[in-house]
């Protein structure tokens, strides 16, 4: 007897079984097939292709003159790249943390039988609706020290109010955080709200009887059962974080100097504007590598833990 199959847990199909499988048994695999195919080609295929390019001297269009690790060397000798990587760390960390926090809090607040829930929910969510191509302009105005918030507050009489992050190379990355949080936290809220709406009411009753306050009930009972939602939110947020291209382009265009550059912008600029596809590919690979280094362990633990539940 096949002991592997024996240990494979509570799978409900008879994978790896002797014949006599009907079409129905193949159904799950059949319906997954298109996704598998495009994933293999359009994600992994291209990823490999990019990896290959990162070892070439490709400039404007892909070419296959291999140059070894030269592009990587250039990359790590590039000040701008290091700035971009550091920014990604700061920006990504803050952005994800704040969005998760705000998203959870707002979802919980909205779950308290709020009057006008629909209206408030829409207000929190709408930033997702508007493309950053334009809201970037609005934010640029708002954060601009000469005619934005700072001016408004000064007009209101707070003469010493100072808010010049947008032009301060050390602080500009936080402007990105503000705008990105503004845009994405509503969606996180929606994710959590959907999760909250699926929790079994009896559980909450049980927790109340156990003496848990509403706060504790959320913290210990409801939110832990929303672990998969956290997971979704995290993936979505990291995705947004490492791809915050529009945001940077619209809000700071990398400036002042290149103080607010992020790897996505770096990559785009080098690949397309500066015709250095080789270097751009190398930066993409490094970006991917960083993300995977953080993500894969988490993914692993997350997906493993689910086995027998």
């Amino acid at each position, binding site marked *: 007897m096949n002991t592997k199959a024996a240990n494979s847990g509570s799978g409900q199909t008879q994978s790896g079984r002797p014949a006599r499988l009907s079409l129905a048994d193949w159904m799950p695999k059949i319906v997954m097939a298109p996704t598998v195919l495009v994933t293999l080609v359009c994600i992994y295929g291209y990823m490999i292709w990019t990896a290959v390019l990162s070892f070439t001297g490709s*400039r*404007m*269009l892909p070419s296959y003159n291999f140059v070894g690790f030269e592009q990587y060397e*250039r990359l790590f*000798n590039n*000040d*701008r790249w290091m700035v971009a990587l550091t920014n990604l760390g700061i920006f990504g960390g803050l952005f994800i943390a704040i969005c998760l926090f705000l998203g959870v809090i707002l979802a919980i607040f909205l779950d308290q039988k709020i009057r006008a829930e629909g209206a408030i929910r829409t207000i929190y969510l709408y930033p997702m609706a508007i493309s950053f191509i334009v809201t970037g302009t609005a934010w*640029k105005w708002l954060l*601009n*020290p*000469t*005619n934005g918030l700072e001016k408004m507050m000064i007009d209101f009489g707070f003469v010493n109010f100072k808010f*010049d992050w*947008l*032009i301060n*190379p050390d602080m*500009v990355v936080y402007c990105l955080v503000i705008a990105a949080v503004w845009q994405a936290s509503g969606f996180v809220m929606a994710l959590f709200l959907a999760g909250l709406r699926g929790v079994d009411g009896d559980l909450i009753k049980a927790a109340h009887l156990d003496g848990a306050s509403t706060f504790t009930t959320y913290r210990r009972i409801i939110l832990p059962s929303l672990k998969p939602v956290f997971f979704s939110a995290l993936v979505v947020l990291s995705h947004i974080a490492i791809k915050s291209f529009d945001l940077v*382009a619209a*809000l*700071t*265009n*990398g*400036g*002042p*100097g*290149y*103080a607010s550059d992020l790897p996505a912008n770096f990559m785009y*600029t*080098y690949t*397309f*504007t*500066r*015709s*250095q596809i080789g270097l751009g590919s190398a930066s993409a690979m490094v970006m991917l590598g960083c993300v995977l280094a953080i993500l894969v362990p988490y993914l692993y633990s997350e997906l493993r833990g689910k086995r027998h539940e």
Partner: protein
Amino acid sequence: GEVEVLHWWTSGGEAAAINVLKEQMVEADHTWKDFAVAGGGGESAMTVLKSRAISGNPPSAAQIKGPTIQEWGDLGFLTNLDDVAKAGEWDVILPQVISDVMKYDGHYVAAPVNVHRVNWMWANPEVFRKSGASIPTSWEQFIVEAKKIKAAGFTPLAHGGQNWQDATLFEAIALSKGARFYSSAFIGLSDTALRSQDMIDVFDTFKQMREFVDPGFSGRDWNIATSMVINGDAAMQIMGDWAKGEFTAAGKKAGVDYVCYPAPGTSGAFTFNIDSLAMFKVEGKDKQAAQKDLARLILEPKFQETFNLNKGSIPVRLNMPRDKFDTCAHASMDSFLASSTTGDLVPSMAHGMAVNSMVQGAIFDVVTNFFNDESMTSEEAVDKLARAVKASM
């Protein structure tokens, strides 16, 4: 046949100008497919172009300029326009600096649309009057006058903190060291020029400009900066002649409400920026015919006039009637002719006419970072510049 034209002339005036071309094409029984992609000085359009080219479906014509034309030529995507050029006597009507850029391997592959002068300074005389300053003609004087203006409560220099604007300012300062220096540094990319004392001086002056811009300059679009001059908030702006469109749109009159001067210390020189449409190899006789017609029409005086009137630039053709153009344009035309003989006609580094995009990007990075980093010294900057340029060659 049909022509598909990829370009980033999307604003009202440009669109009107492009429409002229479109109408002429339609009259010649062609179909005009307008593929406009604005943004980032054509960055997006370049991306699109690459994607189209790689998918085997390039447009008939695309707005490409300067050395990039050569790169596309290298890749073998461009078509030969020699017959059109011959018929239209392009070699005759075009100054050689321009026709050189339009050729790949000795053959015409692109049609030029206009010539911009980049080293302009736009000033609001009202502000100068109020602050008791006079228009500077050298950077030393600029600093003196700017201090007066600042003391009077105005912003001396309207500027937008985007890398190409920084570079525009920077190249104007560099040009004041002479066209030769400029050429060896930004065209020849000579290490000695890049590391020279002159370059250090240029950086010094450049850094001083930081004092004369207002705190909100970061990331500002150039036309907002222009409107600061228009509104009388700021005294001057160093910007190409496209800025004129802003003044015109605001109903201001050249010589009255605003004045145009060459950037300090560069009066004899001319940094040019030429827009052009490169023609791609396409399948089908019809399409090819239409493409040729398009090339021909671009050089026709009618289009040249309309387009350049709208854009603030000057026609690429020599000997065009100039009566419809304003004083600044006249000055530009004169300077263009004069400088082309003295060797003071140089391509703009900031606008991608001098070097390929890799080197340009490397220079941008150093320049813009220097301008925004208070702690970096000019010596460091020069060193960085030289190294960055070398690394990207």
